[in-house]
């Protein structure tokens, strides 16, 4: 398998939303022309508007658009793109697509298909890790077979156990099982979920570590075999295995542990000749021991906390090494400086069991100011589509220490106003005020088991909101009789009557 190398003059971004915009920003700064692809749901989305060129893929569902590698390669050919950046999700960890890019003579901005095959699959990755002397969680070193005697396996590992999909990520296809009798059903369900999400239903089993922290190490390799790490990210604030808040450095990692985990990650990346940006995920036990979980062979959602603490641009570095350049960093220049925290802004209602929400963005006020970063794929007048992930933006703040970063993020969250869909903003405000979180005293089960949103929706806020709604309703009604609340000054009372009439008809 030959690898395509060469200067990148035009880059197709095979993604949408905030990550597509973020990738294009770095490309622009490098003087690289940008090409967007889009589904019918995204025809006037920010990532399309941002690009120099844009090509339609197909109907809204991802399987008919953003997952259609063939259409994406056609667009790349039409545009004359030298390279494709896959972002995260969609085709970013798809070795077959990376291979197709190579065959088509287009640089795939990511590791080689061989690396993806070797370490992108969780079962392979565990075996690789063992060979490289990297500790892993005790478990089955291969996928579960149909009709296998599960009780023997489970007894050998010990309950509770964790069932995980062999492909993919983001918590889909994951189940914790505490009782032997629940095992078979959960394996079946997890397999089904994995099949529909990743097209691969195989699952495996490992020991479930209680109250661990999710710590990941950012690694970066070039084509000459150099690999460095850019320290850890702490991602234990999760819900249903979906990360909600990430920070760097971790409150649980000191310089010594950072060096050990970093060296471990670099060793493993070198073992697969890793190219570009990748992330080694570890479980950190309360006793300080850590276990390799899996590797994400792509850019992570949470990469900005690393960029803010190391003064780097990971996308630029991806593009540079993909084009054949050597790494521009020495390990000793990459020590973390200060602290950064990211709040994922998803269209989910934290007061309604985090249910995903779709709808129009009717109003948007964006935070800014010192050491504050806003990465978004939304704009006022746009909409959140039901067809894609609920992640709509990320708010990231840097501080000279952890507490400053937390207070800055609270300040920035208070500036953020998104009208039209419920978001995670109230969750974040509540979390950042939580004493345990502020002390750094949390683990991957914290949000689900030890944290609650109840009591947050204070009555005086609802009153103030109702007053604002009433006054705005009154103002628009006095101005206009029409349903869109536009500005035709009219007499208050006749306008009122027409409005009541229309609403009467509607009910």
């Amino acid at each position: 398998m030959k690898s395509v190398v060469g200067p990148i003059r035009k880059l197709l971004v095979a993604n949408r939303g905030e990550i597509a915009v973020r990738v294009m920003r770095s490309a622009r700064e490098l003087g690289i022309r940008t090409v967007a692809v889009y589904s019918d749901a995204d025809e006037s989305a920010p990532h399309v508007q941002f690009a120099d060129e844009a090509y339609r893929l197909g109907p809204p569902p991802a399987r008919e658009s953003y997952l259609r590698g063939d259409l994406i390669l056609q667009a790349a050919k039409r545009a004359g793109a030298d390279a494709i950046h896959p972002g995260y999700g969609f085709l970013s960890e798809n070795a077959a697509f990376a291979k197709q890019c190579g065959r088509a003579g287009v640089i795939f901005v990511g590791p080689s298909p061989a690396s993806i095959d070797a370490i992108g699959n969780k079962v392979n990755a565990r075996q690789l890790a063992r060979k490289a002397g990297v500790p892993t969680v005790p478990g089955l070193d291969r996928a579960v077979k149909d009709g296998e005697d599960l009780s023997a396996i489970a007894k050998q590992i010990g309950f509770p156990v964790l069932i995980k999909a062999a492909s993919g990520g983001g918590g889909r296809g994951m189940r914790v099982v505490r009782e032997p009798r629940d095992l078979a059903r959960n394996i079946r369900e997890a397999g089904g979920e994995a099949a529909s999400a990743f097209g691969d239903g195989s699952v495996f089993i490992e020991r479930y570590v209680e109250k661990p922290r999710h710590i990941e190490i950012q690694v970066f390799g070039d084509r000459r075999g150099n690999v460095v790490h850019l320290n850890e990210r702490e991602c234990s604030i999760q819900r249903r295995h979906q990360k909600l808040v990430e920070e760097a450095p971790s409150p649980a990692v000191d310089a010594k542990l950072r060096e050990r985990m970093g060296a471990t990650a670099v060793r493993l990346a070198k073992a697969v000749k890793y190219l570009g940006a990748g992330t080694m995920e570890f479980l950190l036990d309360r006793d300080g021991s850590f276990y390799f979980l899996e590797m994400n062979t792509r850019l992570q959602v949470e990469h900005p906390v690393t960029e803010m603490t190391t003064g780097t641009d990971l996308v630029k570095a991806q593009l540079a090494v993909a084009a054949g350049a050597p790494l521009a960093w020495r390990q000793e220049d990459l020590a973390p400086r200060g602290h950064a925290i990211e709040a994922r802004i998803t269209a989910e209602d934290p007061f309604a069991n985090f249910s995903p929400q779709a709808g129009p963005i009717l109003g948007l006020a964006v935070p800014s100011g010192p050491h504050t970063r806003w990465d978004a794929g939304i704009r006022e007048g746009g909409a959140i589509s039901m067809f894609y992930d609920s992640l709509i933006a990320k708010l990231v703040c840097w501080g000279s220490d952890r507490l400053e970063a937390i207070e800055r993020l609270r300040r920035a969250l208070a500036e953020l106003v998104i009208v039209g869909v419920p978001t995670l903003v109230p969750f974040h405000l509540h979390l950042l005020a939580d004493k345990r979180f502020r002390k750094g005293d949390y683990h991957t089960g914290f949000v689900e088991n030890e944290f609650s949103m109840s009591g947050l929706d204070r009555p005086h806020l609802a009153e103030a909101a109702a007053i604002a709604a009433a006054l705005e309703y009154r103002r628009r009604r006095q101005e206009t009789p029409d349903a869109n609340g536009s500005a035709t000054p009219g007499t208050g009372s006749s306008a009122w009557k027409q409005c009541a009439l229309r609403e009467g008809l509607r009910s």
Partner: protein
Amino acid sequence: MKFALRHGEDRFELSVEEEAGGYRVNDGRTTWHIRFDDRRGAVRGVVVDDARHSVGVARKGDTWDVVLEGINYEFLTRDARFEKLLELQQARSGVASGRAELRAPIPGLVTAVLKSAGDEVREGEPVLVLAAMKLENEIRSPRDGKLAEVCAKAGAAVEKGELLAVIE
């Protein structure tokens, strides 16, 4: 002028009068003195007595969306007389008679319809599956009963609040 608003279970009946520099608002128990930034745009300032808030407010179809301290409130806004009418209507219709409607909690795609009209269902039993934002959501019956009607069709996109089935 009187306004009736609903947000979830909460109801507000507010009377609004203009006063120097702003408005006097009363809900029957409390009186607030309000200043409301009258420029256009979705993000405005509202001062409730002495408390200053930055508030997002916009009309969304039949409701008003208000965002305060990150929290999203969705108000059905009607004048008070109209609200009375509506309640009378609802009392007369099936709402009080044990009829239950299954509506889409979020916009999505109906990926499976598990029951048909005429089927008996138990409380908590899945009636259909709604896919949205990469997750599959089972829509379950709120109580025991019989399906009077199933409006949803597999493969169809539905809007939030759209009627999916009726249980009697």
